[in-house]
């Protein structure tokens, strides 16, 4: 937008781009509904597995990443862009740098979401949590993110406001860190158009993944929304932020500490102990800046609590900021700022305050209903797993006893999901009616004096003022703060690679095992099963020998998982006869009464595609798996057929269904000590 000059001497007239803000706002609401509906379906399948309607595409393992990606990247992502595009223009007193870049950002992001919604149900996944999308989509994400970053910096450089408000620092930290995290974690070698293998193996892959995973929460879900809090909360309450000094400390404290805490996702795993300790210490330290930020937000409202009682927007803000302090749940709740934005974009008032208030209370109740039962389930589960009886045996050796006892919690969680989703439907309706009752202003006129040379260089340039008046210097320092944490974790990580004690018996997967592992990834088995036996007696009694770093040296990617809805599977190989697995996959309840695992009949009927074998073996060799030269040209296929024939033979030799327990008992030399002693078989 070319600036006019009719507002008096030295004052320019320009227009804010509201059209792009509206586009992101609409996308936020639509993807919010889609993502939460997928979440509700997934939550319901946890106690009613038949709800996959016999479709492999919406079975829990494939649905869960669809839900998490939709909510994080589609709902919260669009909400973030909406807030940044609205507030950045106003804080810089400038239109976005380039309209074309804005729209490429918008449509590019939507295209990425649609491709995720297609590929994830098809089982095209890397299996790394919150980074499941395959390599072509990863490249698209990087490109769109660079476009967003260029557009943002262009706007900052063209600003008419000398100083950068604290919100903009949070946006800058977000743009830089998300780029670094995404690129480092997505390093993978393609085997085909939609199949790739992580360049890292085992322990390294786990550490990189959770360095990414935790910081995706930090820098995608948290820092941009804190920036939005520092802009929208004062705006909605019509009072300035409580302490600007505290906001500066909040910012530097947060970005400096957050980047270190990833390893707390890998406690008691085969990850080296020093990395776990480092993650824990920084996690505790992180409480300080987080609570500082929360208090800063809440204290901004001092003297305005009467407004909170009337204004649903402020209610959402208070709940969000408090939830941030307690559990960093602010993302979804704060995206509700659509409620604040819509009336302004359409130059009208919110259609119904009453409806927005209903939405608030339903959403809050919904959150309580899904958070509390899951906490209770987690504690119950942990205590039951670790409970020994007076004779020193596991109190609950059968994993299904634990599963059964927490099913009511899963049901309550789904009830919470229904409430929350209903709230969002109310909001969508309210916003639709608001839009209908108003008149959209695509370009909003504003006036400001241009930034002069003297103004830009700052006459009293010292301290932070000097720093944040120079966006590029500021950016470099913020990047350094973020990179120090990453590098201290990642440099020893490479050294660990040469130091993971090698275990002679650990060999690369055979060709059949490789394709089986890829099916494990495709079906999202690690959405419910871990492969990491921890070094506790309660674990080794239940599952067998604890897992060691050296066992995962050929695992590209690592498949440790992050939750145990079902039991750990690291030592399950060879524990049960092949026939047991055949029946278990066909119908888990035939072998394990009360199981909530979905049926996988298609695994028994679909033809295994072995044509992909050569390209997969080559890709894995290129990342360091020592397959012998020429293995992919013939030997791999032959070995696969021989191993498959043996498995099929085993299945035929054994009776089906009814005698499973007998079969398992025959195989008792493969059972754990606990099972041999008690005769109880999970």
């Amino acid at each position, binding site marked *: 937008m070319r600036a006019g000059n009719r507002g008096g001497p030295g004052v320019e007239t320009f227009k804010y781009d509201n059209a792009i803000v509206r586009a992101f706002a609409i996308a936020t609401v639509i993807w919010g509904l889609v993502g939460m509906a997928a979440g509700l379906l997934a939550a319901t399948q946890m106690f009613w597995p038949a709800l996959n309607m016999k479709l492999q595409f919406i079975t829990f393992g494939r649905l869960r990443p669809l839900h998490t990606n939709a909510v994080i990247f589609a709902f919260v992502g669009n909400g973030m862009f909406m807030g940044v595009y609205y507030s950045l223009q106003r804080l810089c007193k400038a239109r976005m740098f380039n309209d074309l870049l804005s729209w490429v950002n918008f449509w590019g992001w939507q295209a990425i979401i649609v491709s995720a919604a297609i590929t994830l149900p098809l089982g095209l996944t890397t299996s790394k949590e919150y980074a499941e999308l395959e390599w072509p989509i990863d490249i698209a994400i990087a490109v769109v993110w660079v476009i967003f970053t260029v557009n943002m910096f262009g706007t900052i450089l063209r600003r008419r406001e000398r100083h950068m408000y604290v919100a903009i620092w949070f946006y800058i930290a977000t743009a830089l860190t998300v780029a670094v995290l995404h690129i480092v974690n997505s390093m993978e070698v393609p085997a085909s158009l939609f199949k790739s293998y992580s360049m890292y193996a085992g322990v390294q892959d786990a550490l990189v993944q959770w360095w990414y995973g935790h910081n995706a929460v930090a820098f995608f879900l948290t820092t941009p929304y804190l920036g939005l809090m520092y802009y929208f909360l004062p705006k909605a309450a019509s009072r300035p932020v409580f302490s600007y000094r505290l906001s500066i400390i909040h910012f530097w404290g947060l970005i400096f500490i957050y980047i270190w805490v990833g390893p707390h996702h890998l406690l008691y795993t085969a990850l080296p102990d020093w990395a776990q300790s480092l993650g824990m210490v920084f996690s505790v330290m992180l409480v300080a800046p987080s609570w500082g930020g929360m208090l800063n937000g809440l204290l901004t409202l001092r003297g305005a609590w009467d407004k909170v009682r009337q204004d649903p927007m402020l209610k959402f803000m208070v709940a969000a900021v408090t939830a941030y302090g307690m559990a960093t749940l602010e993302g979804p709740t704060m995206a509700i700022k659509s409620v604040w934005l819509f009336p302004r974009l359409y*130059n009208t008032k919110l259609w119904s305050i009453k409806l927005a208030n209903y939405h608030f209370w339903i959403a809050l109740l919904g959150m309580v209903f899904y958070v509390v039962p899951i906490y209770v389930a987690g504690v119950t589960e942990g205590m039951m797993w670790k409970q020994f009886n007076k004779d020193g045996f596991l109190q609950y050796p059968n994993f299904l006893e634990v599963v059964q006892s927490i099913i009511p919690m899963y049901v309550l969680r789904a009830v919470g999901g229904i409430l929350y989703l209903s709230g969002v439907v109310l909001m969508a309706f309210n916003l639709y009616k608001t839009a209908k009752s108003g008149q959209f202003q695509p370009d909003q006129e504003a006036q400001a004096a241009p930034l002069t040379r003297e103004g830009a260089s700052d006459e009293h340039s010292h301290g932070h003022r000097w720093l944040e008046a120079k966006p590029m210097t500021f950016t470099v320092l913020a990047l350094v703060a973020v990179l120090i944490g990453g590098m201290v974790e990642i440099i020893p990580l490479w050294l660990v690679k040469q*130091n993971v004690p090698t275990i002679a018996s650990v060999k690369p997967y055979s060709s059949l095992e490789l394709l089986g592992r890829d099916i494990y990834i495709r079906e999202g088995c690690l959405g419910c099963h871990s492969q990491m036996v921890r070094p506790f007696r309660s674990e080794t009694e239940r599952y067998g020998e604890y897992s060691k770093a050296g066992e995962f040296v050929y695992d590209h990617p690592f498949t440790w998982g992050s939750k145990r809805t079902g039991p750990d599977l690291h030592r399950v190989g060879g524990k049960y006869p092949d026939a047991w697995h055949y029946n278990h996959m066909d119908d888990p309840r035939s072998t394990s009464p009360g199981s909530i695992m979905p049926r996988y009949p298609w695994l028994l009927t679909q033809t295994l595609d072995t044509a992909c074998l050569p390209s997969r073996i080559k890709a894995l060799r290129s990342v360091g798996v020592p397959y012998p030269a020429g293995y992919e040209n013939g030997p791999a296929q032959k070995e696969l057929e021989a191993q498959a024939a043996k498995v099929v033979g085993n299945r035929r030799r054994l009776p089906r269904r009814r005698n499973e327990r007998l079969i398992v008992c025959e195989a008792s030399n493969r059972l754990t000590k606990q099972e041999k002693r008690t005769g109880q078989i999970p």
Partner: protein
Amino acid sequence: MIQNVLSRIGGVGNYGVISICLFFVVFVGVLVWTFSLKPSYISEMRALPLDGAAPEPDADLTPNPGD
């Protein structure tokens, strides 16, 4: 294992000291910086989001259409 890893990095004994110094310098630096800011500047920055605000469309007391 940690000794095994760290023994391969040259001068690893200094790493801990360097880290501690770095943290100390950064945090003290930020604190000194923050508290040396002039009050006039602080109040200017605090007012930024409120500056030039569009008239509040729901500031009037007429009921909202849907209520």
